[in-house]
């Protein structure tokens, strides 16, 4: 199977005064063509850092320490900064940041802000207007909004503008970090439909969120992140219908349902300190199935379409 995205042994650490915080610690996964992925996990599991690492936009003291990120076969981590900036960032892979709609500059019109993105990436001036209108239409807005300022737009409209900003150079890959948080539920549904439409138009989406329900609307593959590691990766069917890792099971159990069984559960305790991650399985002290062997780092056990990092499973039983 040809892979559109391969991430291998990615490590991104924040070098702080208390030591190196291992926010992304040896993350590996791969996507096939036309497969979108959801990265799910709680706060501070490293998912936003993963997204920023793929964009090479980690701010100091954050730094990519090692690994490989290959887009359609091209290892982007071996490129120089200027080459990545010229050829990859925003042109092949773009990002909708968490809370981006609040980062729109209040004193500039939408048109000027979209223009700024094009200017920065050397887009020909004469074609700018046309491209701006095209992007705005693509996200379902009337082109007249480009003359407005951010405060004149609703939350949903601002979010669409920020998505248009990410799409404007027609990248093949878009990372969306919590794109529906802070939006009203009906507007959320509209944004989700927009993401579905973009998928139909050929875009690959990496959706980063703590909301496992929303991920089911977009992702073919899902990675569950815990304390800087991907503890389970698989197809959507695998993850929802037959979750293997105890943390995945707990996360799915923690989703409140509108229909069916009313009860939902919680996970006791809290994630470990990533400046001093514990030896062995990082979920050990919260896991209902913890065993002695879990004090050693669990192996990556391959499964049908992914893997799980857990001593409850072994290679043979998964074949």
């Amino acid at each position, binding site marked *: 199977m040809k892979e559109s995205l391969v991430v291998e042994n990615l490590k991104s650490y924040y070098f702080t005064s208390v030591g190196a915080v291992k926010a992304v610690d040896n993350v590996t996964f791969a996507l096939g063509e036309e497969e979108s992925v959801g990265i799910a996990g709680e706060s501070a599991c490293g998912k936003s850092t993963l997204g920023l690492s793929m964009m090479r936009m980690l701010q100091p003291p954050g730094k990519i320490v090692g690994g490989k990120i290959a887009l359609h076969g091209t290892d982007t981590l071996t490129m120089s900064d200027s080459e990545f900036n010229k050829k990859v960032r925003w042109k092949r892979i773009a990002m909708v940041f968490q809370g981006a709609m609040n980062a729109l500059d209040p004193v500039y019109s939408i048109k000027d802000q979209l223009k700024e993105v094009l200017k920065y990436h050397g887009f020909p001036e004469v074609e700018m207007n046309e491209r701006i209108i095209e992007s705005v239409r693509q996200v379902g807005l009337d082109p007249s909004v480009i003359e407005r300022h951010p405060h004149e737009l609703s939350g949903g409209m601002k979010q669409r503008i920020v998505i248009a900003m990410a799409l404007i150079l027609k990248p093949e890959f878009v990372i969306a970090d919590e794109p529906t948080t802070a939006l009203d*539920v*009906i507007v959320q*549904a509209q944004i989700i439909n927009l993401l579905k439409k973009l998928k139909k138009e050929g875009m690959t989406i990496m959706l980063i969120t703590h909301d*496992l329900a929303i991920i*089911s609307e977009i992702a073919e593959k899902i990675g569950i992140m815990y304390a800087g590691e991907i503890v389970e990766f698989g197809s959507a069917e695998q993850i929802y219908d037959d979750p293997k890792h105890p943390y995945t099971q707990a996360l799915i159990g*923690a989703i409140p349902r*509108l229909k069916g069984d009313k*009860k939902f559960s919680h*996970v006791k305790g*809290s994630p470990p300190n990533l400046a001093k991650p514990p030896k062995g399985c990082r979920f050990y002290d919260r896991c209902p199935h913890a065993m002695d062997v879990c004090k050693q780092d669990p192996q990556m056990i391959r499964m049908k379409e992914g893997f799980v990092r857990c001593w409850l499973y072994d290679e043979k039983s998964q074949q």
Partner: protein
Amino acid sequence: MQDSNVFVDVRSLRKWFGIRRTFAEAISSQEEKVVKAVDDVSFKIPKASVFVLAGESGSGKTTVARLILRAIEPDSGNIFFDGTDITKLDHNELKKFRINAQMVHQDPYASIDPRMRIMEIVMEPLTVYKIGTNKEQQEAVFKALEEVRLEPVTDIAYRYPHMLSGGQRQRVAIARSLVLKPKFIVADEPVSMLDISVRAEILELMQNLQKKHNITFLYITHDLSTARYIGDQIAIMYRGKIAEMGPIDKVLLNPLHPYTQALIDAISEPDPNNRLKEKMVRIKTETGIERVSTGCNFYNRCPYAMEVCKTEPKLMEAEDSHYVSCFLYPK
């Protein structure tokens, strides 16, 4: 429902906010635009039950909560609290009411003072109302921390907020709301800023405390799924009015108002088949703040809008204790 069983009785509550006009508008003597934040809202909360007030932002639900707590003054209407009309009370008479009506806010990072220790934060209501000796106040704090299972209490009490997680901070806020032994608590989106894995814990805690102490609860949220877990009754608000109201399972499993139906369609359940279809969004998008000034306030967005909807619908009983404000339903 017997009236003696009603703890909070809100009648025709109204709060309109005037929008500042530009100079040009003022001199052209255009009518002052108003935002009808709360427009003729009535509901009853039975004693020791959990009443959910649900709606999106701009629906007026937080304004209703503020009016009930008399943090802001209503333009008209009555609020009966345990039999007494609190809208008629003056500042001094309100003291007894305020002790009995407490609030838990949405943001556990903003609602507790980062420069105070947990002990001082939870003790503050007792200090403000001068209740108990210093020793009694300390004991009350330890007891409250025990109730919210923040243990060991002697350790937690002397920490600062930044030493606690979001979920722990919210427990501190809950402890603080309990310390005056109130009969009524308003919880405004208490779990929306917490991680998914922690929400059930906090909700379960609130539910246990509510049952244990017979507290009447007003729970405000836009998240219908968590509302279902904790609520007994629910009222769905849209732009200042109640669109639908009734026992929570009835309203959520058999939504009558087109707006309620749209809210429920919008919710995602974790189902891998979701990605194969589009989400149903039956209602039209809002184009701006212009709206029909008479008639149903949902008219512009309603997929079933009829001619009669240009007149004002009333909240009426469609089936046993399930009320809806919509011309689709004859009495």
